[in-house]
């Protein structure tokens, strides 16, 4: 049981790396779309890489992400729903 679990974790890390490097094995890449959610985040879908200012990839565990544009998230660059608490408005 204990051994199984260690093996599981190694598989998981390997699979995660493989996915990050090669989002799709074949076919054309999905076009990237950004939805500006009213009073909320920017929802980014498709095949893209998210980089820090140093050019390194930012930690990312899902394909579609919500990027904070209200400034209040504690998970930046990702949205954590804080925009609702501060009453963020995307329209003036």
């Amino acid at each position, binding site marked *: 049981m204990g051994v199984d679990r260690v093996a599981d974790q190694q598989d998981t890390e390997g699979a995660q790396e493989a996915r990050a490097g090669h989002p799709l094995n074949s076919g054309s890449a999905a076009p990237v779309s950004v*939805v500006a959610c009213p009073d909320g985040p920017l*929802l980014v879908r498709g095949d893209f890489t998210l980089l820090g200012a140093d050019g390194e990839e930012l930690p990312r565990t*899902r394909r579609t992400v919500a990027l904070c544009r209200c400034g209040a*998230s504690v998970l930046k660059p990702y949205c954590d729903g804080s925009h609702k608490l501060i009453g963020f408005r995307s329209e003036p």
Partner: protein
Amino acid sequence: MKQPSPRGELSALLLSVIAGSVASAQDALPRLDALTGESISRTPDILHDDDLQLALFCLYELHYSGVDGAGDDWEWDPDLLRIRHRIEAAFEQRVRDETVVPALPEPTSEAVCAELFRLTGEDGGPSMSRFVAKSATDDQLREFLVHKSVNQLREADPHTFAIPRLSGRSKAAMVEIQADEYGNGLPARMHSALYARTMRELGMDDAYGGYLDAVPAITLAVNNLMSLFGLHRRLRGAIVGHLAAYEMTSSQPNRLYSRGFKRHGYGPDVTEYFDEHVEADAVHEQIAGRDMAGGLVESDPRLLEDVLFGAAAGLAIDTLMTVHIMESWEAGRSSLRASDVAA
């Protein structure tokens, strides 16, 4: 799921019936049907009726993981389905009485999304998440995990039943959300697996349904509502609204739950389930409101009211469970049926 303990005449007879074969139970089925009618007509409130809610939960469970010892052919047995339908009809009526459906917005994606965010942003009674963050004792954290475990150890399954009933934009959106709930192909990342790990880290039983005997009727009702919505195509609008409301009331509460466990010195292996939901559900709520619920209404405007009903009903029944838990804790009692079950 292991066989739960009966909570009255009806659930006792039901559990003994499904433990046998369909052929051997033919004599007991009319009695089960009559008992169902009696239980429904004399219950003061089906939402808090342990016997009826457990019977309904077990009948639904035949469509999920099954009940240990129950034959697989009970799932589509017409007599059992008729009995389930009687309980469901009374349950659905009671839920409708409890639910206030808001004024209907325009049947456009943006208007539906905005209305769902407005509805879920309203103050829905006591806040369990703030209490968990600031004041819950270690025992109360464990109780909290027990209540949630009924759904979280099979997280996403009730809503997944709706996928074949959707099409186009709303279907793609639900699949996008559910894929994330199921770990995007990585079993260890499944939300149900993260929840199981949290329970194991606290030395608790992580088997699905392991604490079913401990939870009160209202916790079963919260779960039965999802199965009711998920298993009826007629209620596809409601299950979509339910999921949208669920996602929209998750990010911030999960941040507070995580804080409560950290306050007691628990590490990342315990809090990851909650931390993951802060980020995941900030994504899911946008997809759920705009593409899944909004997309469904744009493709079939007749479902607008059902979508809002599903959202409002989920919030209303959830609030009843929260009220039960918070009132128990304020009175210095356990919110579970037997105070030592979670230990």
